[in-house]
């Protein structure tokens, strides 16, 4: 008889006794992301979180799930306990029956698997640190563990071309560790605003009228609330004066970043394998509500006069007036697009709290004063701050997406 996981075995004169050695685990919040290595490489699994009442899906194929070999397609013969066995059997049965909420059957057709069925999410990593792009800084947590900052000479272009020759080997410590990262984010489809600007002849020669038409574009067909992985890119700013401007018809929010840390002395450009150590930094900790704004009719003057410059700027007064008009037109167009944007808002319902984080009280006491109590408190807080900075995730109650009070305008 041997002690397995979570048990202890004691020998006594009357035989052996098996005891429960489980310790209370840390509470796994919604969106808790874990990384595993399987026959198909690294994959992530995300604990179910919710947006309003909906559980996001992972859009995948049966073949991909088979290749990754996560818990979703675990060999049933290995399942012995009744509790996990029931879950595994239900998962496998649902998959083989095409039990997705939408999508095609078959091994290559896309299927949408809700997060509560623990689908495997494939991860594609980017290099961070000594052999990575300078646009991705190294978090302090990993700098403390031996990951070096990217060399200044290494440009993004050279990195894309796979040219690492600019890294001076004399500046690379022998025990360096490499870092890879992959983002996991939430994709929420929505309506999008489109803006079309046209020029029309004005009432007099040299005067034009600018007409801006706003309309709505629906979400992409078949697009659903889902979780994606890769390198997250925040949406770009608004070009209100673009002739045709179209908002993206989705909102996205990062859930977590999965990091892989190599052992000391790994070769630059190495592909991560099962020997690398996974870490996860979360951005989401609580379930979310999501609201999109109403589309409102424009209430201002719909015609924006635009006067092109006259006579090489001979008349300063007129030129100033024209510049002012141009600025007004730009600002009006920007305001129009911004105020009518259909971009939604994610927030965590926290009973009216603007932020679910409880900041630690900061002491203004000097660490060098004569007040011993204040010195001890300041030292303790400095240690707590250093401990927080050295971690990837904050402690409970974590952080929450703030509630935007603007959502309460026009309340009855």
């Amino acid at each position, binding site marked *: 008889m041997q002690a*397995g996981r979570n048990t202890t075995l004691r020998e006594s004169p*009357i035989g052996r006794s098996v005891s429960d050695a489980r310790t209370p685990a840390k*509470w796994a919040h919604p969106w808790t992301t874990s990384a595993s290595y399987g026959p198909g490489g690294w994959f992530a699994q995300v604990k179910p979180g919710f947006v309003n009442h909906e559980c996001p899906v992972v859009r995948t194929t049966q073949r991909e799930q088979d290749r990754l070999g996560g818990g979703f397609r675990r060999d049933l013969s290995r399942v012995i306990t009744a509790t996990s066995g029931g879950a595994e059997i239900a998962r496998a049965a649902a998959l083989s029956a095409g039990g997705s909420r939408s999508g095609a059957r078959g091994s290559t057709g896309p299927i949408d698997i809700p997060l509560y069925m623990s689908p495997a999410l494939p991860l594609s990593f980017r290099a961070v640190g000594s052999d990575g792009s300078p646009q991705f800084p190294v978090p302090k947590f990993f700098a403390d563990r031996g990951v070096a900052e990217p060399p200044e000479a290494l440009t993004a272009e050279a990195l894309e071309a796979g040219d690492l020759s600019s890294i001076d080997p004399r500046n690379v410590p022998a025990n360096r560790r490499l870092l890879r990262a992959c983002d996991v984010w939430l994709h929420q489809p929505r309506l999008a605003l489109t803006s079309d600007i046209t020029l029309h002849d004005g009432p007099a020669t040299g005067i034009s009228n600018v007409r801006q038409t706003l309309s709505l574009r629906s979400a992409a067909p078949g697009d659903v609330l889902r979780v994606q992985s890769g390198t997250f890119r925040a949406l770009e700013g608004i070009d209100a004066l673009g002739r045709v401007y179209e908002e993206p018809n989705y909102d996205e929010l990062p859930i977590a970043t999965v990091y892989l840390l190599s052992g000391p002395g790994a070769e630059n450009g190495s592909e991560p394998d099962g020997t690398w150590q996974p870490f996860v930094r979360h951005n989401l900790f609580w379930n979310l509500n999501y609201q999109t704004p109403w589309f409102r009719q424009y209430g201002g003057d719909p015609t924006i006069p635009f006067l092109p410059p006259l006579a090489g700027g001979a008349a300063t007064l007129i030129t100033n007036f024209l510049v002012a008009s141009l600025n007004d037109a730009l600002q009006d167009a920007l305001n129009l697009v911004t105020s009518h944007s259909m971009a939604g808002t994610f927030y*965590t319902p*926290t*009973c009216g709290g603007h932020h679910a984080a409880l900041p630690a009280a900061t002491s203004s006491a000097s660490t060098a004063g004569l007040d011993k109590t204040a010195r001890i408190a300041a030292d303790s807080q400095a240690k707590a701050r250093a401990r927080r900075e050295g971690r990837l995730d904050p402690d409970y109650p974590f952080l929450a997406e703030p509630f935007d009070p603007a*959502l309460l305008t026009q*309340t009855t």
Partner: protein
Amino acid sequence: MITRGPIIPWPPKPAPAAKPMPGAGTLLALGPGGYSVSAPDRGATYPHPFKPSLSGLALRFSRGLVENREPTIKGVRIGGTATAAQPELAIEAAVANAAGESWCCVEVHPDAQGELPAESKIEIVHTRTPRSLSPEVGRQALCMIVWREGNPWQVLPIVHFNLRYARVLPPAGSGAARHVFF
């Protein structure tokens, strides 16, 4: 009167080796080194407001507040009272949608001004439509129930905090009123 029990030899004889059997929540595996006993990880619990607990085909919810009022199930406050036990919400597989999902929601009935007066009902219901399009009824999903073969397979909590509520009217001609739980 003193009675004497059987005399137990010391040290006692080891019990005869018997084939071990796995008990509740344990995993017994036989390998080259003999039997190995393991237990699954202990799940951490977190007693948050509106925490659902399933027993059979009924759900109980821990105490939680909407606008500082405690919702009810069958007229009894969800945390129970001095005279009434914690109420149970009966759930049925027939309520689930085609994907095998149903929701338990807190349902509010605001008045014409969008307020929740003391006499208005705040109750928990089991439904397949967790969103309300009616201006008179607001719903916030508290948990999702995933059904398999007529049985609740998973209960997933959605709300972890007490809630506040406001009804927001749309601009003219822009649709229906919204129920904002925050």
